């Protein structure tokens, strides 16, 4: 859906993006993370056609963004971090403007405006002048603008900056529902908790280069082959549970205390299920048993050199 090939951008002597190769398939929510100045915004601006690459190619939905910009734009929705809206328009007029600008058909526009207004929860503000909206509402309106033409690809550059926690949650829900409808989302952020839980893939950028990319589970597995499992039980003593676990060769660093603890595990999910089965068959009354997932933040801290240009 999004394909960046050997993408490079130079500003004088500065190489902002250095031979970036990236392929994001349909339905992915791809989180581009990295410190400020890593080249995230430049990459997104080149992807949506705002900036011409020094060399390389950008294709969105198999359309060359540089070669056929007007055609490519119908597939792209773009939202940047700091933006403004036309304060002297009403909410519906603002959306109508962009619907017309994306050359949607006239009968389709009215219905789509109502849909999008409902999606971002601005129904009661439909006929209000934008001038009178709060910062968070304007941000929601910006999101509504980005999705008014039902783009197949959403490019979001730090979209949650300026949003309150509730609005952030709503934004995540909205993005999830868009993904469920088949949209592909490329989202950049340096606030890693923003991306936690809904990105399916991540890419870590530093000094204009993509230092690591892939699905979150794959990157996690590559970086941390040892998984940490936490368990709790009732009844038996810690020592008896430790004896049962110690028999399994794939376990290490067993640390149990009272009625709970953790251990390190190397192996497949099948093998992990066998560990649980062993405990249950030994009549240990397990109340919880689960892997401690690596957060995006943990991964980033592990992979990044934290270098900026």
């Amino acid at each position, binding site marked *: 859906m999004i394909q960046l090939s050997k993408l490079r951008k130079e500003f*004088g002597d500065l190489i902002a993006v250095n031979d970036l190769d990236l392929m994001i398939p349909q339905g992915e929510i791809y989180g581009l993370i990295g410190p400020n100045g890593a080249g995230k915004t430049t990459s997104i601006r080149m992807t*949506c*056609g705002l900036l011409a690459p020094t060399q390389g190619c950008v294709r969105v939905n198999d359309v060359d963004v540089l070669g056929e*910009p*007007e055609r490519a734009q119908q597939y792209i929705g773009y939202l940047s971090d700091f933006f*403004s809206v036309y304060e*002297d*328009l009403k909410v519906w007029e603002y959306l109508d403007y*962009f619907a017309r*600008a994306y050359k949607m058909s006239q009968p389709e526009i009215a219905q789509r405006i109502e849909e999008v207004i409902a999606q971002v929860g601005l129904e009661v503000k439909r006929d209000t002048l934008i001038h009178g909206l709060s910062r968070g509402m304007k941000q929601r309106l910006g999101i509504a603008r980005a999705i008014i033409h039902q783009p197949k690809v959403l490019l979001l550059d730090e979209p949650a900056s300026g949003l309150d926690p509730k609005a952030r949650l709503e934004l995540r829900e909205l993005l999830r529902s868009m993904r469920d409808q088949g949209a592909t989302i490329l989202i950049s952020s340096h606030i890693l908790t923003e991306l936690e839980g809904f990105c399916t893939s991540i890419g870590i950028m530093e000094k204009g280069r993509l230092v690591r990319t892939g699905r979150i589970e794959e990157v996690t597995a590559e970086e941390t082959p040892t998984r940490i499992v936490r368990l709790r039980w009732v009844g038996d003593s810690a020592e008896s549970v430790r004896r049962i676990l110690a028999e399994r060769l794939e376990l290490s660093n067993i640390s149990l205390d009272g009625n709970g603890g953790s251990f390190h595990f190397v192996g497949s999910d099948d093998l992990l299920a066998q560990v649980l089965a062993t405990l249950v068959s030994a009549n240990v009354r397990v109340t919880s048993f689960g892997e401690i997932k690596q957060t995006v933040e943990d991964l980033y801290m592990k992979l990044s050199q934290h270098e900026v240009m």
Partner: protein
Amino acid sequence: MLLFWSNPEFVRHRRAELRRGRAFTVAAVVLVLCVLIGLAAWASAANELEMAQIRSARFGRPTQAQLFEMQQRLPSEALQLFYRSLMYTQAGILAFWSLFSCAQAVSGERERKTWDFQRTTRLRPADLMLGKLLGEPVLAYFIVLCCLPIAAISGLAAKIGLLHVLSAYLLIVSSALFIGLAGLWLSSLFESRSRGVGLIGTAGLFAFLALSFNFRVSELPGLAGFSPLAGLPQLVEPSGSATALPTLFGAQIPWLLMSLLLYMAFGAWIALMLGRNLKKDYEEMRPLSRWQAVGCAAFLNFLLYALFHPHPWSPPDSHSFTTFIVIMNGLIILAVGVATLAPHERPSVAVVGAFGGGCVRFTNMGTVCLEAGARV
């Protein structure tokens, strides 16, 4: 290109600036102003008659018969004055408003951070250009629209021909469109409207268009056609103006035609530059390609040739004529050469300012000339 009435950018401005309440207020204010201008015109004509009556009583001239004739002509004189005043007022409002609103159009959007969103829509540069050209000064066009029936009726009542009334409006609107287009181009060259250089550029452009009227006594009289003031007097006064007509390849043509030719020719070049660059990032803007720059230099030389009209009483000698053409070509090559450069390739004002001295300034300009020459 989308029809202007359904052009999204035009619709946006129409909605924002012509809400029902505001439109009624503007129309009412225009009506009141028209009444005031009408009263002033009547008072002026009546005052002239009164002065004539005093002169007649004191010196016996004008005669009673002439006075009677003046009294008979009073309504018609007042109407002509009213019509003239209305037309000049409309020309002034539309030109001034178009220039200053269009000159902030793109730079203002960049400053407000709304420009990127327009660039990522499916609007083509031509759509954006048309929408902004007509949309930014939409209130001024509405004022003219409100004045139009009053001006047209008063013009016809004052025995100004319908063709003259229509021609006057054609000149007013075409000059406003050209001035707006020039302003739009100027605004596309600046990142922010708060930059002093933008305002200076706008004021400079306005001054050029107003003062170009003075070209009519030069050896390139046709250039006065840039100013609507050159053609408008001929069209709004029943007897026409006594100003000499401009020449094109030595043949005299009406000022209206001269102005339209200049607006269309230069407007086409400006539209070309805007069309190439309007959706580009600021740093990537390059007004003309190399071949377009060559074409532009050739066009300007051709124009110099077409408009050149030496004074019959003092034709230039070959030396001064050659000097003039060489200097003009130097300026043309400098201008079109600069037009082929992207912003970061242009001489930096900061560098000039930092070193200050005339030597640095000269060196910098020299670099531009050399680069411009090399490119062309």
